[in-house]
């Protein structure tokens, strides 16, 4: 019994110390494979999720510094921009709660309900994707304000392998209009290599 307990303690300590919790994601996304070994940075990054059906979700962090709360700042700017259109107003608590939440994807008018949702099931129902077409381009505002608040933020795109290229292209064009020319495409590593022997004679 004792050796087993010893081993369990060891394992438990190991897992507890190395744990970095898997963030809850708005949608199930299967990323395509690539040989790239570059790791994604965990701070100063804006992630745009593109699900299989073309729904768009967005996530950003609060920055490297623990004193900054970029998410809250961005939300305040969004509130300012859409105040009149949707009669928006967020309380101090809601802003605070939002800065601690993860990725989201819904029209701005549903954001209040999402913040105040009681459990993840209720939240999931509200995730209908951020409107990103030309008539009501809210994603552009999110990206723009996030870049204003945190100029060092890089953009990562996490698209599902089966998403239509046109959907991804639309997002990339939108980002390029906002002067983002460098994209980090999130992929999963599948090592592959070619050798001179593969060159046809």
């Amino acid at each position, binding site marked *: 019994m004792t050796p087993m*307990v010893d081993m369990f303690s060891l394992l438990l300590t190991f897992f507890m110390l190395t744990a970095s919790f898997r963030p809850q994601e708005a949608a199930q996304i299967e990323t395509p494979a690539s040989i790239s070994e570059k790791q994604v940075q965990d701070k100063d990054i804006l992630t745009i999720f593109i699900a299989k059906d073309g729904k768009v979700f967005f996530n950003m962090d609060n920055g490297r510094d623990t004193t900054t709360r970029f998410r809250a700042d961005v939300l305040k700017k969004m509130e300012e921009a859409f105040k009149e259109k949707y009669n928006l107003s967020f309380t101090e608590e809601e802003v605070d709660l939002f800065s601690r939440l993860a990725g989201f994807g819904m029209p701005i008018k549903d954001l209040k309900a999402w913040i105040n949702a009681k459990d993840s099931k209720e939240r999931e129902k509200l995730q209908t994707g951020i409107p990103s077409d030309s008539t009501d381009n809210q994603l552009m505002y999110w990206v723009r304000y996030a870049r204003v608040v945190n100029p060092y933020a890089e953009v990562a795109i996490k698209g599902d392998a089966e998403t239509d*290229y046109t959907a991804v292209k639309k997002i990339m064009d939108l980002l*390029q209009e906002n002067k983002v020319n460098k994209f980090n495409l999130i992929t999963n590593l599948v090592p592959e290599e*070619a050798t001179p022997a593969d*060159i046809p004679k």
Partner: protein
Amino acid sequence: MAEIIQEEKGKKGGKRRPKKHSTHIDMTPMVDLMCLLITFFMLTTAFAKAKVMVITMPEKDPTEQIKDQPEIPAFRTLNVLLSGDDKLYYYIGVADPKKPPLPTLIKSDFSKDGIRKVLLEKNKDLFTKIFEYRDKRIKGEIEVADTTADYTIKEMKKADKKGPIVLIKANDLAKYKDIVNIIDEMAICNIASYAVVDISPVELEMLKNAPQ
């Protein structure tokens, strides 16, 4: 726990000794809890950090006209057209409706013997050069830091004047993974210059008439 110590009979004058307590603790509940916690941590831990593939797109500023665009010899341009269903076509040169005949599309795929062979053959010199450099580093013949090695490879790519210039174009049927796959292929074959560009109407027409 209270224990009743029975008086031993038969021994006369013997001292009454308290029975020795066992030093073993029942560890079963603790082990149970540990199992639970380990399972919990194992399932929630995200071990591998997500990997990214960096791609830089050319600037899209209509006010900034590109001057002195370098002349690219037509035989160096390799156009790759993606059309969904893991289908892929390529042609060499320029498809200009004013200058017929149009180049013919050649069908290929994403497999090892597909487009990779074409790319490797076109990029033979640069590929071998970079491969030898990496090989020497692995064998320890050259000892440099990772950043220096990356820089050297970058310089090699810049200096290359013979390799293909790959233009990647996709139509509406293409999936996101096709684009990622083909960019990945560029990385595998050490292609020095490639770009993802918009497909032209002529090429869409060519795709329609392409062999299935």
